[in-house]
Structure formats: C-alpha cells, structure tokens
C-alpha cells in the first residue's frame, strides 16, 4: 500500500510496518491543524462517506494561504470544496477524479486521502504546517524576496465595491492615491528605522544574558517574557502573530483564470527581454564597427591575443552565471533568521552577516531601479511623441528628464 505517506520516515520494511503505521498516523493526526482522528483515516481508506467532510476541512485548512488559515474554519462546505479543488489544480494534481467530486462535500473520502498523500509526498507539508504556528523567539528580519509578495498585489478579478454607481474616477484621484502611498512608505521607513534603533539598544543592554553563548543577548520576545511572566495579560510579542500577508481579514481574493494571468506575465517578460536584446544589439553593432576599424592591419600575434581574450571572457560569463545562481541562493534556502548583535570580525560560525545581505540587496536595488528607469523612459518617449504631434502645443518635460 503505497498510498499513505509515513511522515516519520521510518523504514518501509514490512517487519516494522505493522507497528509503525498506527503510531505514524496518530502522530500525523496530532500535527494536522483541523485535527482529524485516526478513525477518519481508516474510514477514508474504505471510502466511507462519513470521513469526507473532515477531510475537506483539513485540506482547505492546509491549502489556504497563510493569512487565511484561521478563517477557513468558517467557510461553508461548498466554499471549502471549491477552494480545495482550485488549489489542487494550481498545484498540478494529476488525478481528475478529485475535480469531479460533488460540491456538497459528501463523498470521495478515498480520493481526498490520495490527495493528502500526494501533498505529503511532494513537499515538506508537515514542516510547513508546524512552521506556521511556531513561536518566534528571536527578532526576525526577513531578507528573503518572498516577503515582497506581502507588499500588496491586488487581484484584478476582484470586484471592488466602488463608491460611484459606475465606478469611474478622475485621474486626479489616482494621483492623490499615489501621493498617499508615497507618504505611507515614508512613514513606514522612518518607523522601521526607529524600530531598529530600539532593537539595537535592547540587544546591547542585554548582552551576556542568554544561556546560549552563540546568541549572547536576549531578543525582544525573551525580554518581554522576563518582564511579564504572566504574559497572557499584555500584548506580548509572543502573542502577536508573525507578520503575514496583508490580506488577513479581507475576503479571500480570487484571480482570473490562470491562462490569462500567466499569459500576461509571459508577455511582459517577453517584452522586457526583447527590448534588452535590441539594446544589446545596437550596442554591439556600434562597438564592433569601431573595433574592427581599429584592428585593421594587426599582425598575427593579435590573433593569439584574441583567442586568449575569448577564453577569458567565456570564463567570466560562466562565472557570472554561477554567481547569479548563488546569489539567488542567498534567499533560496529560505530560513527564518534571528537578529544577533555581535562584534564585526568575529567568526560567524553558522550565521549570515548583515553586510552580505546588504550587498545582495544593493545589487537587487540597482537592478530594479534600472528597470524602472527604463520603463519610465519608454512611457516618456511615447507621450512626448503623442503630445508633440499636437499642433500649436509645446511640450516641456519636467526638470531632469
């Protein structure tokens, strides 16, 4: 029976199988959020309909985005079914039978069990679930890119409740919203700076306190614990939920059908790459022409030089590519991290130095700025062209452009 995953990773030998399986299932039940009992699994194996609702609830809890995991308990059965089906589809679940199950969630416990096994086999599902609810003892500063997802992408298909009957707005309203956004960013940045200063102070003042010598000082959560041992009364850091996607509390957002969205993104990337290629082409042509003019009439020793240069550049490009892969790796083995104040120059052991993270972020910043400038340049050119075509109008771009 290869159907059920054994999360404990014990040997699949039949000798230990008989004992290990019930224990493993019991452990699995303890870990899973919606708390199905081992009986549910047994019933599902025989495709009994009583097990289906519990499994729908479990899967909807597991598959919903992090921020909404708490609210899935309040979804109706139909909503849970829809959520599970669409999430499984986006993950590429291969069996069509799941998508044909009735919406009322009364059948299909065996299919659901298979789906759960598939999810368990594919990725570290249990660890993800545990990590969702883990207590964060340290002060975290995520340097990972996935945090960017939290910075507010609207879902285009969402029907926004608009104030006007027809929903039309003036351009000035859009300008005003942009200004408001800029202001919010500015205050966010200054709040963060203050937060860093305070964190730094707390770390400095509690140097030498921590029982773990590697860490050396207390985090805010730990200091808070010492200040208020009866922590439930205050809003402690331990009680606060970890920073999550900002859609918490709003309706679950729905995107338009995947082909449109994916096609749109592919289109964007394609345009960017093509534009880049054109620029490179122009640059290369110019340079090659000028260089060939220079090189005319060079002797045979020059061809040796050329070969050496070719090799060197080839190696440089390969190294560059590798460095990029590795740089992506800075964020790639995504781990939570914990801020630790320590003397510069001390051996880091297992840790990550802030200076490295800063370097990586700087290069990312440069990339993004370059692209933004380019996009703005494109728009500016087009608008200048359009406005310039108007008779009797002089178009003066703002200072600096």
């Amino acid at each position, binding site marked *: 029976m290869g159907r059920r995953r054994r999360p404990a990773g014990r040997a699949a030998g039949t000798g230990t199988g008989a004992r290990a399986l019930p224990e493993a299932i019991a452990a699995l039940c303890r870990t899973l959020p919606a708390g199905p009992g081992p009986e549910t699994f047994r019933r599902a194996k025989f495709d009994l309909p009583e097990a289906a609702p519990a499994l729908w609830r479990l899967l909807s809890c597991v598959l919903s985005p992090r921020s909404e995991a708490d609210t899935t308990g309040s979804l109706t059965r139909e909503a849970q079914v*829809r959520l599970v089906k669409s999430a499984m589809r986006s993950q590429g679940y291969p069996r*069509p039978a799941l998508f044909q199950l009735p919406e009322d969630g009364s059948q299909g416990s065996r299919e659901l069990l298979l789906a759960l096994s598939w999810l368990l086999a594919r990725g570290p599902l249990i660890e993800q679930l545990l990590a969702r609810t883990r207590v964060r003892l340290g002060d975290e500063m995520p340097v990972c890119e996935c945090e960017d997802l939290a910075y507010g992408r609207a879902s285009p298909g969402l029907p926004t409740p608009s104030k006007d009957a027809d929903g039309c707005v003036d351009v000035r309203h859009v300008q005003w919203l942009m*200004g408001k956004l800029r202001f919010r960013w500015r205050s966010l940045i200054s709040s963060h700076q203050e937060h860093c200063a305070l964190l730094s102070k707390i770390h400095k003042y509690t140097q030498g306190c921590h029982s773990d010598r590697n*860490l050396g000082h207390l985090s805010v959560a730990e200091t808070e614990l010492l200040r208020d041992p009866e922590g*439930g009364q205050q809003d402690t850091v331990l009680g606060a939920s970890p920073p999550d996607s900002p859609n918490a509390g709003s309706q679950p957002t729905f995107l338009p059908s995947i082909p449109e969205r*994916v096609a749109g993104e592919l289109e964007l990337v394609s345009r960017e790459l093509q534009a880049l290629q054109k620029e490179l082409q122009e640059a290369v042509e110019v340079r090659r022409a000028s260089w060939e003019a220079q090189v005319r009439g060079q002797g045979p020793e020059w061809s040796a030089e050329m070969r050496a240069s070719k090799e*060197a550049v080839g190696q440089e490009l390969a190294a560059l590519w590798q460095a990029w892969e590795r740089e992506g790796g800075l964020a790639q083995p995504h781990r939570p991290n*914990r801020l630790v104040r320590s003397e510069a120059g001390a051996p880091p052991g297992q840790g990550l130095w802030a200076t490295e*993270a800063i370097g990586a972020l700087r290069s990312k910043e440069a990339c993004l700025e370059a692209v933004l400038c380019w996009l703005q340049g494109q728009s500016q050119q087009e608008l200048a062209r359009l406005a310039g075509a108007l008779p009797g109008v002089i178009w003066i771009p703002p200072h600096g452009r």
Partner: protein
Amino acid sequence: MLPADCSLRLVAELRAALDACGEQQRQLDQSLRVCRRLLRAWEPTRPAAPEPTPGPEPNEEDPSPACAPSLQDLTELELLTQALEKAVRVRKGISKVGEGDKAPSLKPRTVATPPATTTSVPPQAPGQAGNGTSETRSPRGIRQPKVPARSLPEHRLLSTRERTSLGRGARATRPSLGDQQVTPSVTPLVPEAFTLKEKGTLLRLPMAFWKAASQNAHLWAQIDSTQASDSANATARTRFLLKMQAASGWPGVGLSAAVVEAEVGRLRKACLRLRLRMGTELAAAPTDCVQEYRCLLLLEGLQATVGQCLHWLQELRKVVAKHHLELCPSGMPARASCLCEGGADAAWSPQPLLYSSTQELQTLAALRLRVAMLDQQLHLEKVLMDELLPLVRTQRPCCVAVCRAVHSLLCNGGQHFPTVLQDEPAD
C-alpha cells in the same frame, strides 16, 4: 474621467498597495510599543491571577498596584530596618534551610512546551547566594514598595514571580520561614526602578523556559538534518508520485501554474541581471584595444544569453498553450503558499543574522524596504502603462491635459508635471 474598468483596476491596485503598507505600519507600531515599554523603567506589574487571601498568613499583605512608595510605606520601612539587627542572626540560621527549600517548591512550575506563556521558575538564585540570600527570600509576602532597595534585577523579577507562584499555591515553604517581616537590606532607600539600560545584563532566562526553547530548537535542527540525508524516503516518495501520475491518465507532465510562475520569475530576474551587467559594461570606458575587445565579447555573450532566455520563453509559451485546457479553472485563490516556503531546500531552524552596529541594522532595514518599494513601484508602473497608454493613444481628439496627467503618473509617480505651452500664432 477614466473609464470604469480602467478605474476599477487602478483603484483596486492602489488600494491593495495602501492596505499592505497600512498593515505593515500597524504591526510595526505594535512592535514599537513593546520595545519602548521594555526600555522604560520596569514597574512591577500587578499579578494577574487573583491571589487567594491567605488564611494562615497574618502578615501577608495584599499586593497593591505598586507605584511610588507612600509615606506609610517609608515609615514601615524604617521600622523594618530597625528590626534588622535582631533578625540577622535568625536569618543566617534559616537561610540555608530556606534556600534548599525554596528551589524544589518552585521548580515544579515548569512549562511543558514553548507556546505556554507563563512560567514562574526563578532564575538561578543559588548563584547569588553570596550576597543575596536574604534578599531572595525576603520579598515573599512583603508589599512591593517595601522591597529593599538594593534592587538587583533578579530580586525584582523574583518578587513578581514569587508572588504569582505564591498566588498559585506554593506556600508550603512560607511557614518555614516564620519571619515575614525581615528585610535584610541595610540601606532602606526608595526602591529604584529597574531599567534595562543599567541592569539588563543581569537578567537571566528561566531554566524551564530555556530548556524547552533549546529542545524546540534541537528538534527543528533534527528535521533539517533528516531532510537533507533522507534518500530512502525520497525514492519512496518519487515512486509514489510517479505511480499517481501514471494512473491518472492525463497526458500532462504535472505542469502546474505554480511551476510556470516560478519559471517566469526566474526569467524576469535573469533579465534584470543581464540589464545591469550591460549597464556596467557600457559605462566602463575601455582604455586600449584589448579591453575594448573584451567588452565587445562580453556584450555579445550577454546578447546570446538573452537569446537563450527568449527561446526558453517561447518553449514555455508553447507548453502553456498546449495545456490550456488543464489550467482553466473557474476561480482560483491567490498563491496557495509562498514560493519560498515549499522549496525542497528550505531549512527550518533559524540562522543568526549578525550585525555589528545600529547603523548596519538600519541600513539593512532601509534597503529591504527600498527593494520592496521598488518592486511595488515597478508593478504599479506596469499596471499604469497597461491601462493608461492605450487611452491616450486612442483618444480623439488628443487632449493635452490628459497627456500631461498621464505623463506625471507614468514618468514621475505623480510627483512632477510637464509644462505645456500653447503656441499661439502671432497675429
């Protein structure tokens, strides 16, 4: 005025961005409140659990919300110190007993798992046996303001904690002391408030908490290491997945929207980096022939890479088009899980992020925010271009005001406006 669908989309996007910022700000404000509170003087908190009035303890005073000591307290303090000399001998005698007694009675108050938020095990009191014996014992049953004011932080923490633990019934050792009124302090001062700045280095984490936390960390580290070295498990999983795939009867190769999006993300990143490198090369001024040649070769190499990316993109497009049917649902939730969360290389135990100065930490935070902001700006820029440029192109007649407004939005994020002059023909 903008048309309805365009307006809807723009407003939706901007509102989402505003909400995200707002949410971040709220969480940050909360953290700031917590930090500021920690850095102020730690006033002794009123114990939360209602303490049962002690029967056999006539000297027990109800815990008051301690603030500045009142006049009455000060006089009482003086009285207590007068009794000090008499009590010294007694104290010395009982101190050994009290020490051994106290530890076991309070130790059982351990927390089982890290998520438990309260603990009342005192920090390592024995370590302070030398000068603090009396102080560690004395706060029991004595009102907060009268706590003698050598006020080592453990002392203060102990007093809070001991009161709560007492409130929970660990009173067994109290009677053994007998002498409730003993204040060992020689100098009755107004109790100093505890500040992190002055005395922070004296804090110690409770033993039970520390044990639980390190066990937790150890377990997560175990998960990391088993994940890394678990090949038998991996093959069993792959076999299972292949069996599922084969039994499904679908021709698809397990293509999922998530995979396609990941690829698109990779391509976008590659494009960014290529562009950056190109910029560096173009900006560099080659000094001699050889350098110029190398520059040229590098640019050609970049061009070839871009060509490869485009080719890969084409392939991806073909695959998406072919599996169009399979990817067409009625409505989908936004990303089911963070792209990073599910990576096979994900590690779970936190790693230290080391910084050496406030400046560095602030730079890191500022850069992180800047990158996020730029990312958002890019996204908004693309949305604006998508929505507004077609409007401008197709409007008949071409309205200058609209051009001007759109220009400001697209090219400066709404900060600056181009100047438009009307060129009147001179009569």
